């Protein structure tokens, strides 16, 4: 039986108060199983990023509860700071922009994820080098971000996201800034993480060509979950996206 990694139960998020209160996400309930590759789709401003923020334990919900690995970890009374440790140890993030620290080399950018949660030292360095080698960046370990191409930067960001062996990996438009070859490569890597490593991966995307990779899709519209359409059958075959027919 598949375990539930993350469960959002009746979760809502509002910003501001009174007349200026803005709804970002209303009454969302989603269960994501361990090792599942979840796609979140929807138009701009629909609440996808808010969903990611709640799922990534970046902020507590205004209403509802968030359960992680069978334990309630956030409700409206939870303070943001309380979630940080859990986030550092169990959750990885990949963004549309790589968001690498400009003053650190590629290896150090990966290593900093471990150092940030108190796991620095030679083991962290070794792990960073191994990950970058696996991602084909063995020759770029000591390169600074501004000397890396967009695809290389995104792979460094991915290595940083998985440096602490996360249970949950959240990706916000990770392929938006990449060409079709690189898009396929990154989606393949995310898919491999879910399939081979058992990492729960949650990807926000606009890219309709990516949905064939997902096990489950959540569609968000106007701050509400509009449905969970079934993904096309040919998901997770590892075939590069660029070779797939457009949907």
């Amino acid at each position, binding site marked *: 039986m598949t375990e539930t990694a993350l469960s959002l139960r009746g979760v809502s998020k509002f910003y501001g108060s009174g007349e200026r209160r803005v709804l970002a996400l209303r009454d969302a309930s989603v269960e994501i199983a361990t090792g599942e590759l979840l796609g979140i789709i929807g138009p701009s401003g629909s609440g996808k990023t808010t969903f990611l*923020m709640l799922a990534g334990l970046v902020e507590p919900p205004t209403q509802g509860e968030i359960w992680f690995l069978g334990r309630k970890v956030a409700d409206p009374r939870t303070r943001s700071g309380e979630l940080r440790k859990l986030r550092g140890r169990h959750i990885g993030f990949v963004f549309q922009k790589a968001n690498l620290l400009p003053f650190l080399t590629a290896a150090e950018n990966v290593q900093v994820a471990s150092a940030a949660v108190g796991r620095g030292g030679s083991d962290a360095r070794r792990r960073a080098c191994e990950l970058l080698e696996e991602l084909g960046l063995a020759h770029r370990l000591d390169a600074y971000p501004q000397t890396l191409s967009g695809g290389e930067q995104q792979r460094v960001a991915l290595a940083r996201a998985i440096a602490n062996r996360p249970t949950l990996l959240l990706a916000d438009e990770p392929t938006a800034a990449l060409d079709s070859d690189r898009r396929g490569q990154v989606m393949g890597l995310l898919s491999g993480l879910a399939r081979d490593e058992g990492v729960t991966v949650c990807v926000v995307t606009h890219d309709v060509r990516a949905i064939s990779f997902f096990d489950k899709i959540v569609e968000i519209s106007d701050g509400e979950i509009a449905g969970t359409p079934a993904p096309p059958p040919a998901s997770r075959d590892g075939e590069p996206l660029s070779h797939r027919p457009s949907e």
Partner: protein
Amino acid sequence: MILAWKDIRFNFARFVLAVVGLTAILTMSLAMNGLYRGIVHESLVMAAGVGADAWLVQGGRDGPFNDESHVSSLLDRRAEGLFGVKEARRFLSFSFPVSFGSHKQRLSIFALDFPKDKGDRMPLAAGRYLESPHFEMIVDKSTGLALGERIRIGRDDYTVVGVTRGQVDMAGDGLIFVSLPDAQSILNVAPSEAILLARASSRNQTAASAFAAGSRPIMAVILTLEPGAPVDLIREKVASWGDVTMITRAEQIDLVIQGRLRRLRLQILLFVGLMYAISGAIVSLTIFTIVLEKLHAISLLKLIGASDAFISLWILQYGLILGSISYGLAVAISLATFDLFPRAVILEPSDALLAGLALLVVCAFACTFSIRKALSVRAREILS
């Protein structure tokens, strides 16, 4: 992983510029502090450096530095008769215009009560102490006179037999040490018109004796006391004479510092305070600006789970590295350049240490302020 070092390594030019700016302002602060110390030191060279345990000055006056004082040139003989007094020397010092080389300058002449005092209380850089009661002088190096040089002062020629260092008057001018009779001769140089006027005003005396009688007094008598001498009894006895007041060494120093130097000291101390306040503001602003540039990186670190301590340590380390390197350079520059100033600028170890501690506190404060700003950044900013 020390993020601060990596940050510095990457933005080295900016760090160097920040260090240069901070070093400059810190050196200025140390110099202003040193100027204050130098003025106090120079003002006390005569008052505290002539081996006086006490001074006998004109009755009711606070002389000879803080006030006028003229006493009889025979007062030293009276003083030597006092119980507990080991030695009494006559004191006379005045400024006098002297021409040497191609220029004319005012020099401070200090009379040594030869043969009791040959100048051997001060260390010599070259030459010897006085051996003759006439026409020999010891000069401070800052006068520009060299050993063996001969110059005319008043109506006589004097030869430099010794050179000393750091012997200056309250204005910072180098001292010339001559015997008391020579100093009195120099002081009594007067044009013939002055002698004629003195003759006319004193019909019962010869012109020479009248002029001499009016011009020969000394300023004070310097007392060296026996160990354990009864200071209060000596003061009481001196007071009973009526024409003289006794001032101890500590009182004399206090008179100079609290009297003549009071306003100047306050002025410089205010500037010292101002400089340190400006330094503190610049240190704070520099660190704060650096932190503002890092808000995006801080937001990312928070998102990936970095603790407040991890982020704070980065900022604190950056501030302390910046502060300590700037401080070290400022002290090194101060030590290397303060001797080149025309007047004494003294860097006391205690002042340097205090400035360092103050900088540490300022850096810590600036970092705390910046850290508060950094920690107020929310992780979600990176997703927005």
